[in-house]
C-alpha cells in the first residue's frame, strides 16, 4: 500500500494513522505513523453506532503541531489515489472554489429525509448544539460529506480537530457541519462523486476510472488484503 502511495506523494509527507492491532502497527515500515486508541473508530454498523474520526483528527492535529504543513489530504485505506497529480488537483480545486474543505457528496440535509440526518434529528440536543457553537446566521444548516476522503486547509482541519463532540455524532455529519458552523467554506466535488461511493470493490474499475478523470476511487479493499496475505500478515 505504501508503495502505491509513494507514486502520488512524497513519503516524507505521508502520515499513517492506524487504529487496528498494536502488533500490526509495529510492523508498518514507515517513519511517520501514529496509533489511535479510540473505541469510536471500531464500529461495525458505522452509521447506527455513530463512527467518529474525532480521535483521528486530534491525533493528526497533535502530530502536525510544530510542523509547517499547510493542508491535509485525508484518505481512508480503501480510498485510493489514481491521478499522478492527486494533491496538486485538490490544491487547485480548493483555490478555485476559495474553499477550506472539499469532499465528495457534500449535501445540505437539514429538513430532508436523509437517513443520517433523521437519525440525529431524533435527539433534541442535536440542533441545540449547532445553535450554541455556530458563527453563522442560520444555525439550522446540516451538511453531509462522504467520509472516505477529503481535503482540508490546515486551519480548518485543526479547528475541527479541536472541537468537542457533545454526544455521539456520525462522522459524515459531524465533520462537514462543524467546519461549516465554525465559518469554513465546505464544497462538493461533483465531477469526482461518480468514483467515490458505497459499492462493491472497484479494483477492476481503477484504470477505467482514471481515464474518466477520477483523482481517486473508493472502495478498493481486496487489493490490500491480498497484498497483506502475500506478505504473510
Amino acid at each position, binding site marked *: 500500500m505504501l508503495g502505491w502511495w509513494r507514486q502520488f506523494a512524497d513519503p516524507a509527507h505521508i502520515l499513517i494513522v492506524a487504529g487496528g492491532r498494536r502488533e500490526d502497527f509495529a510492523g508498518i515500515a514507515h517513519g511517520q505513523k501514529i496509533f489511535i486508541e479510540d473505541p469510536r473508530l471500531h464500529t461495525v454498523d458505522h452509521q447506527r453506532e455513530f463512527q467518529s474520526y474525532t480521535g483521528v483528527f486530534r491525533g493528526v492535529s497533535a502530530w502536525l503541531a510544530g510542523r509547517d504543513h499547510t493542508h491535509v489530504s485525508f484518505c481512508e485505506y480503501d480510498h485510493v489515489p489514481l491521478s499522478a497529480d492527486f494533491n496538486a488537483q485538490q490544491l487547485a480545486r480548493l483555490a478555485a472554489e*476559495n474553499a*477550506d474543505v472539499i469532499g465528495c457528496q*457534500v*449535501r*445540505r*440535509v*437539514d*429538513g*430532508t*429525509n*436523509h437517513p443520517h*440526518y433523521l437519525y440525529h434529528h431524533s435527539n433534541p440536543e442535536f440542533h441545540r448544539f449547532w445553535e450554541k457553537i455556530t*458563527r*453563522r446566521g442560520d444555525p439550522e*444548516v446540516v*451538511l*453531509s460529506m462522504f467520509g472516505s476522503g477529503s481535503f482540508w486547509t490546515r*486551519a*480548518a482541519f485543526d*479547528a475541527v480537530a479541536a472541537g468537542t463532540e457533545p454526544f455521539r455524532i456520525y462522522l459524515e455529519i459531524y465533520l462537514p457541519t462543524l467546519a*461549516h458552523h*465554525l*465559518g*469554513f*467554506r*465546505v*464544497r*462538493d466535488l*461533483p465531477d469526482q462523486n461518480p468514483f467515490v461511493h458505497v459499492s462493491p470493490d472497484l479494483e477492476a474499475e481503477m484504470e477505467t476510472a482514471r481515464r474518466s478523470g477520477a483523482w481517486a476511487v473508493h472502495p478498493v479493499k481486496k487489493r490490500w488484503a491480498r497484498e497483506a496475505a502475500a506478505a504473510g500478515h
Partner: protein
Amino acid sequence: MHKLKRFVRDLGLKILRACGSTIIDAETGQNLGRAFLFPWRGKILVIGLDAPVRPVFRPQTRLTYWKQDLGFTVHPPPDFPRCGQDS
C-alpha cells in the same frame, strides 16, 4: 444470513420502486428518482427514494379548498461563503 437479508431487502425495494412513482423536484423539475409513497396512520411513508428531499406544498394558480399538492424538492448544492474570524 446477512447476504440473504440484503438480497430480500434489495428485491423488495426494486418491486416497490417499480410500483411507485417518479419523484420530480417541485421547484426545478429535476428527476429525483423513484419511490413508493404510502399513507400510514396520518403519515406518508417514503420508501426507496435515494435523494435527500424536503416536502413542500406546491403553489396553486387555482384556489381549491378540497385539494392541495404536496411535492418534494432538494436543497441547492451547499455554497456558503467563509465567515467569522477566518473570512
